[in-house]
């Protein structure tokens, strides 16, 4: 009993001392714990912020790459967007100046010279302990921007016809910018005369016939130069305002050549034919009332059959039979052995062989593709075109009757550049093609030539593409119509762009307003594939890239 009570008293006496020690220990431990915990949290914050910074930096870089992809593919439609994984807020701006700091927060326009991409990446694991310094990183990249190539190199001629070329009625060809376009005919003859009901056709272009001759009549006027490899015949008030280069030439019935003539063979002038320049010929024959305003050079015989013939300049010839006698104001030099070939004309521009354009998407980088196998009318084309967020291709080769752009009171408005591949195009009535705003838009209507043989392969002659009635391609649209079959631009149709066909003809009061369009992947000027063709806008070299604060 005593011992139990004693022990109780001892414990009662020691309770305060132990408690004191424990309290002291706890106090010191608490202070240490607070200090260590604070320091640990701080250290954790620093480490987590570093980790977050790395993640955010990578996310920002990914945002830059995402923007580059959109700009490279021409799929940039909005100026600001976000990516989810990794998370980044991306902003695209462009400048129309190479040096100024004025930026427009929008996808680059055709006037853009530089593009700025601002990407703010966010960390997946944010900093802890209130350390948010690494939660976001911003990277700014500036790239040069190369707008769509407006260079005409590779675009080819205003009108290319592989076989034959006919210009009838009062059809006209000119250019939208006042430049002198070129009409190229690879094979066979070209006519612009009464046999095709020509009235007052005017070709404001050079005419190059690589393997054929030319017949011009009925007041048809060719404003540029003419090169032909077979005889050229002018009659019935026809005029050539430039020079004529051909194996032989006949000019009769009040025809006028405002330039000069070069022929390796005979040049025959008759019935008030008037050469305002000089004549260089293998032989020269002036029948009656013909005039040559400058010198004449005949490598062979010269025959002047009537006194109404006049050579205002000097005549150089091998022999002269002046029975008229005609008037030779500048005198005559006769060289019995022949004076030689005389001065050489300007060489004929190169007319390339037919370029086979098939359906090859690699030639159309940056174009979105849609297919169409039914409908195939203007409204259907418009519906699909509106879905494109960048340049687009409609593959309508499965359309049974081709594409039908022939309706009244319907307008195809191009929101983007557009290419349509189909076996044939029927274009007419008073349908129109235009685009809102002043931004130039391009339209390619292509009937592909799948046989790579350097000549047009028209699988079915009914696959012609006629442009008739009062169909109009309005500015700012320019259009290229390509088909290995025939093209007839007739009635009062107005085409703004280029025509490239197996056989091309113009009639009625149709007008071809030349504007270079070209075809991507080919060089229509040289016939080479791949060529320069049309190039779409694209990013250039990187100008700068930097990490930004904040």
């Amino acid at each position, binding site marked *: 009993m005593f011992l139990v009570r004693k022990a109780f008293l001892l414990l009662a006496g020691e309770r305060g001392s132990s408690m004191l020690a*424990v309290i002291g220990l706890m106090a010191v431990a608490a202070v240490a714990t607070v*200090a*260590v915990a604070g*320091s*640990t949290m701080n250290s954790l914050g620093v480490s987590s*912020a*570093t980790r977050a*910074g790395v993640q955010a930096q990578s996310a920002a870089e990914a945002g830059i790459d995402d923007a580059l992809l959109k700009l490279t593919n021409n799929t940039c439609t909005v100026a600001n967007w976000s990516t989810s994984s990794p998370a980044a807020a991306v902003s695209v701006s462009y400048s129309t100046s190479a040096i100024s700091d004025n930026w427009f927060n929008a996808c680059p326009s055709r006037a853009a010279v530089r593009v700025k991409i601002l990407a703010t990446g966010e960390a997946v694991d944010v900093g802890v302990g209130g350390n948010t310094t690494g939660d976001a990183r911003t990277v*700014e990249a500036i790239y040069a921007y190369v707008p769509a190539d407006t260079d005409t190199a590779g675009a080819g001629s205003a009108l290319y016809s592989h076989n034959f070329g006919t210009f009838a009625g009062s059809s006209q060809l000119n250019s939208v910018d006042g430049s002198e376009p070129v009409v190229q005919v690879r094979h066979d003859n070209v006519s612009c005369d009464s046999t095709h009901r020509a009235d007052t056709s005017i070709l404001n272009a050079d005419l190059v016939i690589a393997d054929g001759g030319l017949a011009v009549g009925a007041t048809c006027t060719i404003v540029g130069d003419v090169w032909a490899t077979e005889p050229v015949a002018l009659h019935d008030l026809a005029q050539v305002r430039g020079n004529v280069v051909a194996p032989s030439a006949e000019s009769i019935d009040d025809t006028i050549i405002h330039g000069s003539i070069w022929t390796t063979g005979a040049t025959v002038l008759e019935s008030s034919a008037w050469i305002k320049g000089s004549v260089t010929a293998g032989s020269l024959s002036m029948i009656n009332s013909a005039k040559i305003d400058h010198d004449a050079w005949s490598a062979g015989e010269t025959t002047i059959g009537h006194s109404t013939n006049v050579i205002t300049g000097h005549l150089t010839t091998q022999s002269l039979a002046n029975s008229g006698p005609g008037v030779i104001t500048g005198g005559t030099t006769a060289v019995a052995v022949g004076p030689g070939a005389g001065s050489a004309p300007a060489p004929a521009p190169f007319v390339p062989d037919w370029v086979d354009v098939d359906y090859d998407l690699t030639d159309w980088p940056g174009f979105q593709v849609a297919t169409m196998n039914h409908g195939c009318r203007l409204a259907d084309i418009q519906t699909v075109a509106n879905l494109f967020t960048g340049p687009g291709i409609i593959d309508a080769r499965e359309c049974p009757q081709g594409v039908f752009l022939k309706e009244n009171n319907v307008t195809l408005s191009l929101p983007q550049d557009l290419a349509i591949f189909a076996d044939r195009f029927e274009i007419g009535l008073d349908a129109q093609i235009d685009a809102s705003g002043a931004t130039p838009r391009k339209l390619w209507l292509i009937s592909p030539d799948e046989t790579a043989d350097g000549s047009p392969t028209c699988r079915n002659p009914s696959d012609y593409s006629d442009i008739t009635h009062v169909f109009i391609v309005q500015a700012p649209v320019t259009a290229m119509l390509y088909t290995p079959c025939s093209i007839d631009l007739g009635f009062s149709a107005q085409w703004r762009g280029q025509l490239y066909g197996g056989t091309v003809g113009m009639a009625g009061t149709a007008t071809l307003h030349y504007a270079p369009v070209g075809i991507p992947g080919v060089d229509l000027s040289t016939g080479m594939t791949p060529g320069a063709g049309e190039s779409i806008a694209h990013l250039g070299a990187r100008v700068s890239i*930097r990490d930004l604060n904040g």
Partner: protein
Amino acid sequence: MVARARHHQHDVASGTGANQRRQRGEGGYSLIELLIYSSLLVIILTIVGGMLLNTLTSKAKVLESADANAVSQLISTSVHSGVRNATALQVTDGANPDIDDQLFVITAVSSDPKALAAERVCQAWFYTESNGGAMFYRRAAAPQTFVAPTPDALANDMSGWTLLGTGLSAAFAQPVFNPDVTPDRRAVTVNFTINAGGDSSPALMSTKVTSRQGAAPSTEPTCF
């Protein structure tokens, strides 16, 4: 008389009981009890003291480690953010080959969002064995000519420089700033050790940073 006697007896009886109680509560401890108590107290205080010392030592180590970590990260981040924007860089060793002092200067694209991308800033890091092994940083608009602080400036006046951290030393056989000498590259490897635990077991920090910028054109303002 009889009643007084009874009362007295009662008082006697009462006084005896109180004395006994006092003797039991205030009677003190025996020597044995004190010895046992003291022994136990010594044991407890020894244990508690040991724990306290251990706690304080650990606390100091943790604090030093955390501080070293923060300093290392700060220096690394600082060099990283600067060099990534650098169009030109230069490392200059101290005049005394026995001392590892180095001056690292870069010409960098401005990271200020309000500044043009064409604007340049000069940034410099200076490592010195003095002051317990320290790293300083300074920044100014280009063009500039940054030079290493003199010993006198190190001792008395480092105005213009910001102290990033102390307790640093060069890693064995490696300079603190080791530039990449490959042509057309702007990169630097940063190596240093930092006393992380206060027990002479420094931690090695090593990081390499490569600039994303193209080479600076000759007409660009320089910083060295």
